[in-house]
């Protein structure tokens, strides 16, 4: 089957029941999305499909209809996405393992709401678990990302 991942077309010879996450990580070599739970309970595997946040660990790759965007496709080390830039400036990550998913959820949130309130952030990010407890800085970084994004547009 053929998938568009981070703007690139890739051919995958896999069981269509394989979750998108494992097709990305093991077959396509896109390791940015992380495996945390396998049951859509932690959000570490969050990717965007046509802009909407999806838990890739629980979506069979055969059912993917749309362009997949992962943490590796939103920016580069030299040209960060505003959300990545805000995460860097606020020094959000501790272990960093959940942050690819956190950042993708924040990207989707800011595409929906330009300047979210704390309550809107809490609501949108509730599916993304962080065991290190980076939540206070995530809130600050989403607010900062909103400002960076508005300034760029």
């Amino acid at each position: 089957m053929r998938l568009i991942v981070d703007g690139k077309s890739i051919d995958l010879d896999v069981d269509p029941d394989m979750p998108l996450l494992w097709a990305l990580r093991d077959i396509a070599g896109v390791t940015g999305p992380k495996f945390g739970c396998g049951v859509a309970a932690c959000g570490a595997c969050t990717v965007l499909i046509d802009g909407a946040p999806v838990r890739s660990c629980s979506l069979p790759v055969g059912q993917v209809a749309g362009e997949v965007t992962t943490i590796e496709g939103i920016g580069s080390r030299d040209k960060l996405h505003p959300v990545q830039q805000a995460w860097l400036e606020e020094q959000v990550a501790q272990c960093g393992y959940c942050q690819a998913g956190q950042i993708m959820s924040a990207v989707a949130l800011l595409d929906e709401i330009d300047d979210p309130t704390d309550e809107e952030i809490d609501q949108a990010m509730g599916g993304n678990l962080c065991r290190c407890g980076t939540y206070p800085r995530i809130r600050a970084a989403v607010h900062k990302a909103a400002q960076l994004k508005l300034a760029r547009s």
Partner: protein
Amino acid sequence: MASIGKIARRTFLIGAAAVAGGVAVGYYHYRKPYPNPLEGELADGEATFNPYVKIDADNTITVIAPRAEMGQGISTTLAAFVAEELEVDLDQVKVEHGPASYAYYNQKMLEEGAGFNFWDESYAAETVRSIMLGVGKMLGLQGTGGSTSTTDGFDRMRQAGAAARMMLVEAAARKFGVAASELTAENASVHHKASGKSATYGELAADAAKLDPPRDVVLKDRSQWKILGKPQKRVDMLDKVTGAPIFGIDVRLPEMLYATVRISPVFGVKPVRSDTGAAAKMPGVVKIVPIDSVYGSGFGVIAENTWAAFQAAEAIDVEWGKPAYPADSDAIMKLIADAAAQGDATVERDDGDVDAAFAGAPADKMIEADYSVPYLSHAPMEPMNCTAQLKDGEMHVWAPNQMPVLVRWFCADIAGVPIDKTHVRTTSMGGAFGRRGELDYAIYAALLAKETGGRPVKVTYTREEDMRHDCYRPASAGRFRARVGDDGLPVAVDMRVAAQNMSVSLMSRWFPSLPGGGPDPSITDGARNQPYTIPNYRVASVQAQVPAIPVSFWRSVGNSVNGFFHESFMDEIAHLGKVDPVEMRRRLMADFPAALAVVNKVAEMSNWGEQLPSGAAKGFAFTLSFGSWVGQVVQIADTPSGIRLEKMWIAADVGTAIDPGIIETQLTGGAIFGLSAAMGQQITFRDGQVEQSNFHDFDAMRIWQAPRFEVAILENFHRMGGVGEVGTPPAAAALANAVFALTGKRIRQLPLNRDVKFA
């Protein structure tokens, strides 16, 4: 495991000799440095000065930060020690974990394990600490734990930076034909102001590394620090916001196979009947192999991808044996509670005459209470995993782990190759919290690497396998009593705490041929060693005999239990004595100025004592752990959907604050870790198996539940403390005390959501 036993016996015997005979016996070995492990792996153009510094001719400066980066920011702080003295900016250095090596032994882990109170600076305490330092050196145990990495690295890594700088300056002096005293090192170059000559470190490195290291190294005074003492940009942050493949689970190698394990969910038993036939025929499955190890028995499934391995592991038809321990949680907890009530106790603190002080106490001045906490899983976000390759007589291991030297021993032993042909690379870790001090994932990867004909194999646990095969925070029970005087302050406190002996559990996995035993000081850690002056004050530990359930280090270890027990019970005493709980601490901690300052600071920050609107309340708790003095106040509110955590204030005296930004995140993160457990986490058993399996039934705090934080970092005490764990211990008690203030309900059993609902 014969050779492991031999290695262990030898090293432990050396340690024992040092303890018994004094360090002088092993003085030569103690002083002699371990060989520099970087010597053997230099690239063309690279020169190494000591185990912490490599400089390439192209001026690439590599600092080895040989402690597990599991989120606590240690790679940044350790690199900062070297950079400060080397006179380079933090963004000028490349930071690597480096190889597993005795040279990176952690001396502090054993030093504070000697069991003296942190504030005890008596001759006996200092002597034992210095002996333990020698033991740590001789064991060569490279490990991350006990919140020791910063205090352990503080002198050693600054000295390493300074020594390298002095050698570079000396090389420049010879090159320029001037005296070293005329030169200055700055910005990765050495300058001679008078002549305008300068050379980069890269240009000097090859010559400098040939010089003898300086005999005496003078470190900068704190007033000269440019990097230390100020918040730094973390060296790992860019990787972490771009999804870079830095974690163990991200390892990808040519020809790599993927695997998982299915280990008995009943601890300590083997399969009694199994059929792997159908699973082995599933698409993508390469091989299914039986596993029999010190961590458990079951199966390894090798496949073409992780998903195929997961599917096949689930399809194995197997029946497991019966547990040697009580099959259900109620029976296990009763066993532990009975031990607290009646078991043989080891008295760990005994001030005054407790029994006499309770004699004839009037009922209205007495309080007795039974407390308990459940087993807990570590549940780091990155499930256990490890990659191994056994090829051409060499063993290569890529492991997210906290104990590289032990990983190396075990993997060498399993592969049957010498230690020096076994190479362990420690990756970044998606959390650990003590879990990756265990070795199961590495043992399984090494066993499976023998089955792949030289191809590398990456073993990944499902979340279910991870949660049901943890080495858990021990469940614990406490029986407490106190008598208050006419002034409302306690005149006698008597505490008995029971739990499984963690070192016995650990030894049964690591060194089953060695005897384990003796009292386990971690059972009362956080209760026996708190800065309170109470005239009659006894704290005793009891070993609860629960066979086979593996228990281990969970962020803050015994403090995670006793922070809750001790500080909840202090709140009960204050209530009985009709004394404000913060005021009671001020009076009982008067002999400990560092503690008193923390209590006063957090009370001031939180405006303790203010009139709150109805439906809101605050709770206070304090724990001294890992050398840092931490006070917390949490404010909660009753809402239609349950109790909401509104705000938490934290004051912490860490002695010397190396990186205030990282310290703040550790204090808040540690508190969230403790609050998560207090609010809703428990590991329970049915039919000898752990009931919880994933984040739906073992969840942690979510962002909407997280309070706002305000943190104050104090530096009053004259010795530096750790920060990675110290935010956790008081959190549960602060919350339980707030719940009492809000509802009048005293909850003595965690998790709190057994009794109250949280929003």
